[in-house]
């Protein structure tokens, strides 16, 4: 087990190296640098100044040299300074990490809490009205483009019904918990709604498979109640595949949360990423990339361990 973990972490680090190298190279291919975005060569900056700043930032070096420099600094714990904000990348990200974790975590939690029971009930009575309704609901959540859901929700709940604010994390000058919750409602329900679709589908299909297993009949023949049979024997075995799928959604979730964050002006990491890309803020983009990659890889390692705990047939060798 320890050896397995060790190997997993090593391979995760290799993955990180490859991911960052690819992204760094791709970034160098993007037209325009941070300088062009900020001042532009034809703007107020003189050509000499432009070249001087370019040299200072190291932008005149070839890609591989810049990447090597970046990697060396990162290994020393230095993520560089954001071109745009002029403060260390670590600080910028630290500020934005919390709100994102809060938004994505709450959204995913609601998706699981609602999606699991809906999926289980659908699988328990396949073809029933409940099954068909939940299937329609799931399909709507899965297929509707996120920005359209965002705009629809804002139109009805914020604009028409005036129930919830449509922007930001706090009302200015009000840092209370209640205010935070009110601001959370819309973005969280959008994330929960779109993720719940996948979860309902996955739970339903995992349960449909497990519910046909012979050992459920053995459990019934023992004299257990139907609830015990479904929860202790059915769901318990279905949980491993459902968990795998839910975890596999995390990378996608980070991406889709970016859209929600941007639309709702939520000060999260996804919105930060979009801004950083627009500003060609290479150190910040790389920092965010690294954080997202670490989160995804950690989630995968955690998932593998959880899988082994949930299913005794899995062994780590």
């Amino acid at each position, binding site marked *: 087990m320890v050896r397995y973990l060790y190997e997993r972490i090593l391979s995760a680090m290799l993955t990180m190296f490859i991911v960052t190298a690819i992204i760094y190279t791709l970034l160098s291919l993007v037209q325009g640098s941070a300088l062009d975005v900020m001042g532009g060569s034809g703007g107020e900056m003189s050509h000499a100044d432009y070249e001087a700043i370019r040299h200072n930032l190291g932008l005149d070096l070839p890609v591989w040299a810049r990447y090597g420099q970046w990697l060396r600094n990162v290994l020393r714990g230095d993520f560089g300074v954001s071109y745009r904000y002029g403060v260390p990348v670590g600080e910028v990200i630290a500020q934005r990490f919390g709100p994102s974790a809060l938004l994505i975590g709450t959204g995913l939690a609601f998706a699981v809490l609602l999606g699991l029971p809906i999926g289980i009930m659908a699988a328990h009575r396949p073809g029933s009205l409940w099954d068909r309704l939940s299937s329609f609901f799931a399909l709507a959540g899965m297929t509707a483009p996120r920005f359209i859901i965002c705009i629809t929700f804002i139109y009805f709940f914020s604009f028409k019904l005036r129930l919830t604010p449509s922007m930001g994390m706090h009302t200015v000058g009000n840092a209370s918990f209640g205010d935070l919750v009110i601001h959370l409602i819309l973005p969280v329900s959008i994330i929960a709604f779109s993720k719940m679709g996948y979860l309902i589908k996955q739970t339903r299909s995992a349960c449909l498979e497990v519910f046909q297993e012979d050992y459920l009949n053995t459990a019934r023949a*023992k*004299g257990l109640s139907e609830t015990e049979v479904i929860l202790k024997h059915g769901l318990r075995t279905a949980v491993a595949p459902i968990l795998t799928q839910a975890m596999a959604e995390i990378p996608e979730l980070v991406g889709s949360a970016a859209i929600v964050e941007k639309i709702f002006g939520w000060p999260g990491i996804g919105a930060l990423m979009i801004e950083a890309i627009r500003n060609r803020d290479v150190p910040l983009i790389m920092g965010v990339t690294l954080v997202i990659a670490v989160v995804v890889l950690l989630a995968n390692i955690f998932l593998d361990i959880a899988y082994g705990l949930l299913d005794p047939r899995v062994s780590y060798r």
Partner: protein
Amino acid sequence: MPETLLEVKNLTINLKLRNRAEVSAVDGISFSMNRGETLGVVGESGCGKTLTASAVIRLLSPYTGYIAGGQILFEGEDLTKKTARQMQAIRGQKISMIFQDPMSSLNPVYRIETQMREALRAHRKVSAKEAHRISAEMLRKVGIPLPETRLKEYPHQLSGGQRQRVLIAMALLSNPSLLIADEPTSALDVTIQAQILDLIRDLRDETGTAVMLITHDMGVVAENADKVLVMYAGKVAEYGTARDIFTCPTHPYTQCLLGSIPRQDLDVDYLTTIEGIVPPLEQMPAGCRFYDRCPLRSDVCQEGTPPPRRIGEHVTFCHHASCVLP
């Protein structure tokens, strides 16, 4: 006078089809079992053996079928009238069931001990320690070596034969008066089959648990059953003591079945075969359901279901019933 344990009267099980129509997959069958007796239920796949057994323990899936009529009198009480909660108390306690495929009949994520303890605790309060002791003893009884070690293992660590033994042990924990064994050996290889059947027979003799043994193997029936119920397409073809059925089979279907078994004591060039296949339930002949395939068919067979012909306990549903030794 042996005491009647189970009496099934006119049991009819309907299946729901896609187009909302219904067919009777089991149609008005009757039979009875005494305490401590083994009843062999034989017939081809799809003849309603498993449905009948599932109906007795009331485990018919509500989406596929339901009991449309008849009575199931178990220890004098009609099981068709029991509520779900009442049936829960009967299942595992008075009536147990083991299934065809031992590989998939144990939950892969729980230890053997957990699954056996659960079966015990469904019916009485026992401490974990006491449950462990009872389970280990039961495993020893079904011939599992090192029961203490096995209890701590997961199903995938046991062989198919051992798993079936565990399932039998689990089914007998509360000393039920009826054990339903639905093709308990079909998924096992031949040497293990004999061992499992011997085990079931020994346990029956020891505990007095009656056994409803479902199989399509006439040889298994001959060796184990006291009574035999031959089913064809959801109806009883012939029902009687094993002695009657094997020495004097009167239904042509039974005769064909027996004739299709290779025998060492007879010198025949060809084994009997039964022409054709069982017709789909929606297209059953109006009269005798065996009509299309019967070597003895005549016009009278098309006029309604053949009436029962009885000699003592031996019943045959055939116009042409006559004892023909194979």
